[in-house]
């Protein structure tokens, strides 16, 4: 019998529920397609840890590697050696630079991610006032891209009365993000809203706002995990936030990997592949020298729908 296809899944960090959910997407797909997969992530969300894991996967002769990279540039070399050995490389969630991948699966169009958060906060604060951004680390590519699009969006005339006062960084550490949020509260008494496009940051910001007794006075949105943010949506510290569905993300990445291993696609722009119950995905040019496809639009979580999602991921 022919050897089953084997996929190595690398994520940013072990024990992060977002990635646990993504692995569930791979699981679903593997039941439908009958491939094998192994998954692993470093304990400390380091680039070096991911390299170790990738080398381990090469050693185990996987057919494809699907990675959410901690450092877009830092894994390029090792992934190139993988590709030299005929291994297909798909990045998902957090991309790898074009020269180190065959295809990138974006959860959503970066521009949209930036836009919806600005729209959300504008709606919440009533279209005027000071806002701030609480980001992860100043070194995170996806964060910086989103913030860039947020700033572009804020240029539009309808946001004239909104002032982005500062961008601060919580390094994806809960206590540091909390401190930064507290600093924002103290330093900008007129602050109306905060966007935190990181799950750690938005949760810490919610705690800080609630602790300061400012729930509802400082509005909050961002990209948050339903399981982590459930209580804050319920008590309206956060009235609406976004995230894509990590299960779908894993699911699409799995389908793309299998299609590529089978030779159905090469990852070139213009190709398309069938992603199970999510339908056909078009591959297009990403503008960074590589190609990408997207999973869908960011999903809006609200106090109304959070109950059904909080135990999913």
């Amino acid at each position, binding site marked *: 019998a022919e050897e089953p296809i084997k996929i190595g899944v690398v994520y940013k960090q072990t024990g992060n529920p977002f990635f646990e959910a993504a692995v569930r997407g791979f699981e679903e797909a593997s039941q439908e397609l009958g491939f094998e997969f192994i998954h692993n992530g470093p304990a400390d969300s*380091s680039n070096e840890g991911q390299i170790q*894991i990738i080398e381990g996967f090469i050693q185990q002769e996987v057919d494809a590697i699907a990675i959410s990279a901690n450092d877009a540039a*830092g894994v390029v070399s090792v992934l190139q050696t993988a590709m030299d050995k005929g291994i297909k490389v798909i990045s998902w969630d957090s991309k790898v630079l074009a020269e180190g991948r065959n295809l990138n699966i974006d959860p959503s169009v970066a521009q949209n991610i930036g836009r919806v958060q600005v729209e959300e906060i504008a709606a919440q604060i009533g279209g005027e006032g000071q806002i701030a951004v609480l980001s992860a680390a100043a070194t995170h590519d996806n964060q910086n891209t989103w913030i860039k699009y947020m700033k572009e969006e804020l240029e539009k005339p309808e946001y004239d009365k909104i002032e982005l006062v500062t961008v601060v960084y919580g390094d994806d550490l809960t206590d540091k993000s909390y401190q930064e949020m507290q600093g924002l509260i103290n330093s900008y008494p007129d602050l109306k809203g905060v966007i935190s496009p990181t799950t750690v940051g938005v949760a810490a910001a919610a705690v800080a706002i609630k602790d300061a007794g400012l729930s509802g006075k400082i509005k909050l949105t961002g990209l948050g995990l339903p399981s982590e943010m459930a209580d804050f949506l319920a008590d309206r510290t956060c009235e609406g936030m976004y995230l894509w569905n990590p299960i779908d993300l894993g699911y699409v990445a799995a389908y793309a990997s299998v299609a590529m291993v089978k030779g159905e696609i090469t990852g070139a722009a213009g190709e398309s592949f069938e992603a199970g119950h999510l339908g056909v995905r078009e591959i297009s040019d990403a503008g960074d020298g590589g190609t990408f496809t997207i999973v869908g639009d960011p999903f809006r979580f609200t106090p109304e729908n959070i109950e059904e999602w909080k135990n999913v991921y």
Partner: protein
Amino acid sequence: MASVTGKLPAFLRRREWLLAILVLLTYFLFNAQRPDNYTFPKLLNQTRVYMVDVGFMALGMLLVLILGDIDISVAATAALSATVMGVSYRGGEGLPFWAAVLLMLLTGLACGLFNGLLVIRFKELFPMIITLSTLTLYRGIAYIILKDQSAGSFPAWYAKDLGYGSLPLMGLEVPIMLLCLLAVLPFYYLWLHRTASGRRLFAAGTNLTASRYSGLHTDRIKLTAFAMNGLFAAIGGFFLTSRTGSVKYTIGTGFEMQAIAVAVLGGASTSGGRGSVAGLLLALVLLTALKNGLMLLYNDAFILNLSVGLLLILVVLIPNLFQALADRRRILRQRMQLAK
């Protein structure tokens, strides 16, 4: 019978033997579990992942540990040096690559020297405390230099051939990086174990006061050890960067603990005066064999760390227990003679 049990601990007290046995055990254990993936050639290929950069850092750390000191700023030193290299090379638009590398080594040396100066100037402070603050300082400087950027686009021979290339030797594909480490080891060994300055390092670590009274220039010895540690950290950073292909200020985070673990596993003691190159090499091999095997079997980073922690404690603890047992037995024997 008494003599057999009496000899066993003495045998196990040679760390090198204990490590060698563990290496073989680990290899055969995992090889039996994963006969197709966990093979010698494949393990050899993995050495570049687990052995080389940490190995160079451990070589530096060993010097400091032999002195009875510790340096936890090595990973930050490596990061700062790599940053300097990346920024000065600027993807080919800056300095020529050799100059960038030279600058990198000098940066490492300077960081080490600065640590060393602080250590000999402020003897009241523990090196651990000093290097704790220089750790933050060095990485902080790297952060100031690189900000949120990464620097890369290194020459292909560096990022590809050195980082991932291997040479065929006796029918095996040996990573070039590993060859670099192995090429350095004999010189390092000779220097540490066979020259006067190496000997003085051990002397200073065994008893600093007595060494000073014996005429050794203990301050200079310390300074040299810390400076060389900085240099080795930079070399470690050099090889690490050849694998990552680019530099961020976070590069090598946590490697200081790995370097300490390797050196301690290899027989160095944080109280000074002990350490061997052979032990260090064996410890590196053992960790490679173990980590890679665990990686294949479990694919779980935490289990990997847990096992390394257990190994570290057991390898240090077991000889201590044997030693205590041997001491007790010795006194008992004398007491028995007394009774006769």
